[in-house]
């Protein structure tokens, strides 16, 4: 059996489980509710104060970024809680024993689980993300800087956290691994904010903390990219009274497109974390 076939079998099993356990349906249902509420809320804002000028657009953009942050949080939690029990607990319960006794490598099991969950998360991030941006656009007429790319950054952020939790899952109990991943996600976000402050006020220490944090866990690279894509254009910012759009981009509710080097690092990080997870799983006694 080729490696790819084995990976696809496990990925398909993971997808079937997500459908059967109603994880996807729960996500779809909640998304519909959130989008309906988003549309309703932004429509009320537009009723009170039609979004025609830069000040209103700036206000709407901040609410949209807040909404995106909540969405990224939900995605991150979904990734962590779906991946944390994906390997270790299934070994401990005996569920994986019968599978591992088949002609399949441990690496293929891990990559298959990762692929299955990645398909769910990326699919959900893209569909729900575009629907959210679309609902805001329909309700208010506001279109941010780069609405097409924002959901992709959010999907990437979810993949980073999925990979982190999956790597933990090979050796750490699911509750502990999940908790560590959530805390790491929060710390990375905080460090990103501090790094932004460092950039804005030219503090090497804070800037350095942000860089180190992004090297350890690059989820904030992608979040800042998503937030930047949802931020208004510089003209709107200036018209809305923001004296320095460059400084505004370092605020917690804004961002900018990440440097390609950082995007490449995200990719390298995901591949590296998966490789570490595979090594840990191969060395684990079952």
């Amino acid at each position, binding site marked *: *059996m080729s490696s790819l076939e*084995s990976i696809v*079998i496990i990925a398909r*099993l993971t997808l079937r*489980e997500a459908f*059967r*356990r109603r994880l996807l349906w729960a996500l779809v249902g909640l998304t519909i509710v959130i989008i309906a509420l988003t549309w309703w809320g932004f429509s009320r804002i537009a009723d009170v104060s039609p979004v025609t000028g830069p000040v209103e657009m700036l206000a709407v953009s901040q609410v949209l970024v807040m909404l995106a942050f909540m969405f990224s949080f939900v995605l991150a939690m979904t990734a962590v809680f779906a991946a944390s029990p994906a390997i270790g607990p299934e070994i401990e*319960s*005996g*569920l994986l*024993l*019968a*599978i*591992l*006794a*088949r*002609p*399949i*490598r441990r690496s293929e099991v891990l990559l298959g689980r990762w692929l299955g969950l990645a398909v769910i998360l990326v699919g959900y991030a893209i569909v729900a993300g575009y629907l959210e941006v679309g609902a805001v656009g329909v309700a208010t007429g506001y279109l941010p800087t780069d609405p097409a790319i924002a959901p992709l950054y959010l999907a990437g952020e979810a993949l980073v956290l999925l990979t982190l939790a999956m790597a933990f899952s090979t050796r750490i109990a699911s509750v502990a691994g999940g908790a560590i991943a959530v805390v790491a996600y929060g710390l990375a976000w905080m460090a990103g904010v501090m790094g932004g402050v460092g950039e804005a006020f030219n503090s090497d220490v804070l800037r350095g903390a942000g860089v180190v944090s992004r090297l350890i866990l690059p989820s904030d690279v992608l979040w800042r990219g998503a937030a930047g894509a949802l931020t208004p254009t510089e003209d709107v910012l200036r018209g809305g009274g923001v004296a320095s759009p460059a400084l505004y981009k370092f605020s917690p509710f804004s961002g900018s497109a990440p440097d390609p080097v950082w995007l490449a690092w995200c990719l390298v990080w995901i591949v590296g974390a998966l490789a570490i997870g595979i090594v840990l799983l191969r060395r684990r*006694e*079952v």
Partner: protein
Amino acid sequence: MSSTALGRAEGPTRAPATDELAIETRELRKEFGRIVALAGLTMTVPRGEVFGFLGPNGAGKTTAVKLLLGLSRPSAGEGSVLGAPLGDVATRRRVGYLPELFRYQGWMTAREVLGLHCELARLPRADWDREVSGALDLVGLAQRSDDRTGTFSKGMQQRLGLGVAFLGRPELVVLDEPTSALDPVGRQDVRRIIASLRDRGVSVFLNSHLLTEVERVCDRVAIVDHGRVVAQLAMADLQREQGTRIRVSGIDGLAEHVAARYGPARVEGEWLNVDAIAEADVPALVRDLVERGGAVHAVVPMRHSLEERFMSLLGVDGPDAAKAPDAADAADAAEPASTDLKATR
């Protein structure tokens, strides 16, 4: 049991060629930190036989099974399964396995679980339906095939695990405590299934605590203790080592002397026990006893039980009952209480 006798019990003096072996291990060792789970496992399992792997708790049986299946890596030593080195992924296509800790996707139906394993075992898709239906019939789950396994009892899950292990006509089936959750009917089914596997030339590696089960189905057994095989013997040889109990009176002091000519003898109350006596010599012994004034009330053929041999090898004093009545008599009786080694140490 002396090592000499054990050597004799190992069967033909010619060592089987590697391609005649289902399993071969040489000084297989497994350590978990400072704990030595296997201290040097050396054994051979011929193809087409049902091989019992016995030992008390903590002897290293399940660790050995995991090493054989490539689920764990040995710290030292080597071995082969179906002619391929331990851990060879491709060989697993030819091996069926029921884990001791059996559990299957609770959100799937029994049919879906079997289908998944058909896919994992890389069976031709055209064979899946036949394989799945065959396995369901074999283990008696056809009526529950479309129920989620999460609703199954432990016994039914174990039956499902047996079905999974038998998919795809494996050349070797490794069963780790296959009857631990089964009722007497289920155990009888397992014995029947194992017998049918043997008839088809499938090798069966049976890891079990249940000596009576092993005694009934196995061609050969290995007894493992502290991570080493302390004996490997053929069941046929064990069954040949029979004895006779004679209830005799009126010949006090002479019975043991008379019987000594036929085999090692000892008197326990009214019973005279004679070990290793040939079946054909029993009438002559009875005649001798009668000629010397003895009144013979009963003659009971006996054989050494696996339990007695097991206890002897592990240095555990067994009860007198360890010498069991003839197996044929026991087999005719209702399902006997199985001897559970978990309680022996």
